[in-house]
């Protein structure tokens, strides 16, 4: 079954390097998102796998069949790769009805009229748009157009489905709805999904694997929760999670046990889960997820002042100042905090990530307590 493999894929546009030496394996029936800020090469990567863009160098195999190789001059055209592509702007043909849009690809494969009719009706029903069959795309709302585009892409039954920010043009409510719809389709169609997005929430909630990219380089390729729990570097740590992780600069004050000095008054012992190597005086960045900063009155690891409090019912996001270091904390429950009040902070729960300041790389995980 379709397992996609990219080996040393590089894409240059003139002098600009869009994707640099990318290696990744997309397992059969997985739901992989390519995540990153705009211009990071994620769309280019997707288009190269689909065959819409030609890599400058490298090898791509789909289902162990080489579909692209710069060395051997192999470049299988997109339609021979048995893939479907869902475009950002849907790319519905405005001069064809919904029915015709879906049927066009099948007609092209010389299906019989009855077979096409059966298949199109099946898809219309599956996406709950049967009543729009006779309409033109311009007569549909954004969400309906999106469904038509999905139906059109699924029509030929591709084993791999590529999606390029398909939900970015929808409003918040529809986006929620389409997300669960996509998860359902992934299960029902039994195929591999590769999905491009810049929305970390979308990547977190939908996918089985996240590939985080920046400036053409792959930063981390792991299941979403692993990216969340154990980010490979400060970039991925910062990109995933809302509200953002707190990245606090500090230095290693002492090697055994490891003591981190964050401010003149805040010094914390970092108890690593595995053996890690740090040296005294090394500049580090400590990653503190907002939900791992507890606000307490007693047994505090540090003191801070409340700068703002944003209660939303289920949770409250508070901005804090700890010796002029800005921190965000999430407190669950419908509590409000008084601005300007002094509170104690506790880092007793959760696992924290330590990064090297210079390289940004993850040094190791551990727990914290007051030195």
């Amino acid at each position, binding site marked *: 079954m379709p397992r996609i493999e990219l080996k040393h894929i590089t894409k240059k546009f003139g002098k600009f390097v869009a994707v640099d030496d990318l290696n990744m394996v997309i397992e059969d029936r997985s739901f992989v998102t390519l995540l990153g800020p705009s211009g990071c090469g994620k769309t280019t990567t997707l288009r190269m796998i689909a065959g*819409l863009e030609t890599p400058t160098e490298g090898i791509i195999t789909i289902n162990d069949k080489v579909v692209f190789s710069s*060395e*051997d001059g192999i470049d299988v055209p*997109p339609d021979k790769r048995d893939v479907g592509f869902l475009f950002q702007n849907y790319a519905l043909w405005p001069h064809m009805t919904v029915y015709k849009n879906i049927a066009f690809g099948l007609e*092209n494969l010389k299906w019989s009229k009855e077979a096409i009719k059966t298949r199109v009706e099946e898809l219309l029903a599956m996406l709950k748009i049967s009543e729009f069959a006779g309409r033109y795309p311009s007569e549909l709302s954004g969400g309906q157009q999106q469904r038509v585009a999905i139906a059109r892409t699924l029509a030929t039954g591709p084993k791999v489905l590529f999606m390029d920010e398909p939900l970015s043009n929808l409003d918040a409510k529809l986006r929620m709805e389409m997300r669960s719809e996509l998860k359902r389709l992934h299960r029902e169609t039994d195929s591999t999904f590769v999905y491009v997005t810049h929305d970390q929430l979308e990547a977190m909630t939908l996918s089985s694997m996240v590939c985080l990219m920046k400036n053409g380089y792959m930063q981390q390729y792991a299941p979403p929760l692993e990216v969340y729990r154990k980010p490979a570097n400060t970039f991925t740590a910062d990109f995933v999670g809302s509200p953002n992780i707190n990245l606090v600069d500090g230095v290693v004050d002492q090697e055994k046990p490891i003591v981190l000095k964050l401010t003149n008054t805040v010094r914390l012992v970092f108890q690593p889960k595995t053996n890690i190597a740090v040296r005294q005086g090394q500049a580090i960045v400590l990653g503190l997820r907002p939900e791992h900063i507890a606000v307490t009155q007693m047994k505090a690891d540090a003191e801070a002042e409340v700068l703002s409090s944003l209660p939303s019912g289920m949770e409250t996001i508070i901005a804090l100042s700890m010796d002029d270091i800005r921190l965000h904390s999430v407190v669950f429950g419908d509590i409000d905090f008084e601005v300007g009040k002094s509170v104690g902070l506790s880092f007793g729960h959760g696992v924290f990530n330590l990064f090297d300041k210079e390289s940004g790389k993850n040094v190791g995980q551990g727990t914290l307590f007051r030195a």
Partner: protein
Amino acid sequence: MSAKSKLNQIKAFFKKPHNIILVVLLVVLGYLTLVPLLTIILDTVTVHSSEARFVKKPVGSLTLYHWTKMFASGITSQKTFYEPFVNTMVVAFLSCVLAIIIGGFFAWTVTRTNIRAKAFISTVFVFPYIMPAWTLAMAWLNFFRNSRIGGAPGLFTVFTGLETPNWFAYGLFPIVVVQGLHYAPFAYILIGGILRNMDANLEEAAMLLHANRMQIMMKVTLPIVRPALLSTFLLVFSSTMSAFAVPAFLGSPVRYQVLTTQMYRTLNGMNPGYGYIMALVMIVIGVGILMLNQWITGRRKSYTTITGKSSNISLFNLRKARTPLTVILITILMMIAILPLVSFAIESFIMAPGDYSFSNFTSEFWIGKGRADIANSEPGILRNPSIWLGLTNSLKLSIIISLIAGTVGMLSGYAIAKRRGSKLSTWVNNLTFFPYLMPSMAFGAIFLSMFAVRRGLIPAMYGSFWLLVIVGAVKYLPFASRSGINAMLQLSGEIEEAGTIMGVGWFKRMTRIIFPIQKTTFISGYLLPFISCMRELSLFILLVSPSTRILTTLLFQYNEKGWNQYANAINLMIVVIVVGFNLLINKLTGASIDKGIGNN
């Protein structure tokens, strides 16, 4: 990178249809536009057979004779170059200003006021541009010619008894008026497009800040459209500069020479070298104008571009002036679009020119068998085999050229837009636009000298119909490729890719997806070359042979011979065909010429 992967890259490059199109265009257009340019340059420093006597050097040898004669030989240079050059600039500048004032006023009135009969005004206002350029010139002569130059006086003199002065009937004044009116629709289309696409919020924001109409106009609207206005000015300027027919009709009776008429004389006469220098000068000015235009639009792009919909801008209320102004505009339109046609009809039925009494009317020039005492027994145009030949040739030529130019233009637009930003695409883009800058007559002359003899695989084509086809197709390619690029830029690449990924072949993608979606713009790309070709004179005038003559060259011949009635009748025929065809296509497909040139 290894040699093998380099080779593979080349193979991959040529697998893409748009790359093949670009490379083929680069080669073919390079040959058909750059080689002519080099030939022109070479011709300015070569001794031509007709000149061997004065130059005193063997034919074909190099000489600076033409350059010194043209630029540094006192009174000769004054008469052959400097005077026509100054005339050209004056004519081009003034007609341009006039065109922009008239076109701009109509555009503003139609888009920004509550004038009546908007649809009618915009349809009819484009007529003078669709009609051959000399239509208005002939009409001017029909009305205002005087007897001092010789020949019968025009309608105006006959009805009022006043003899028109020479300055009014011939030379600078009528040329400027006629060219100004001819190009006013061009300015109207461009400026109207800008006004229509300008974000009305900008004006409304000023209104909310208590600016009055005048302030809004002067402080907001004009500054915003100024770069586009300037660019319109430059485009019209380069067209008026290379116009031939109008100065030929209105200037020659009083020896008012411009570069193009001078070029016709020299290319057709003893000194082709002079003509090629003039052609070169015009090409250089044209390229300069184009670069200036690109600089202006490029630099100011940030705020001239289309931003919003101005669907619900509050229109300027003309109040009491509404009906009178509508009447005035329609009267003007009648005078410039309809009245000329009436005058052609009348003139073509007049036996003795200048006598408009009823007894003088005759159908001789339309259906007569030909009389020994008039025009060497030339039969009336409806039973005249040479007119029928010209008509068939004109139609055949225009249709073939429009099919070639339209299709190539569409493909080039497709390929250029697909590879936008790449060097190859930029080169081809400039190459497809270059013929626009070549003065038609010089272009014709060059093709004549290039293909009069066998060149490699291409047989000698002098007097051949296909020579006309090639010249026309290349010359009108810019119109079609502009529409092609416009059409493609409006279309997101994903639309085509959605077909690619389903295995829809390239040809089917073009015919079933891309063409149907942008049908009207593409058809406009076919329409413009057709219309331009039907009314083209200067491009073909040096190239036709008796068997390939077309309506426009026939008209010019009849006019030179002074057979006024035939000329008027032919002109009426051309106008009816062109306007009728335009309206027909417009009705059937929604395509129109303003879609083709509308958004440059």
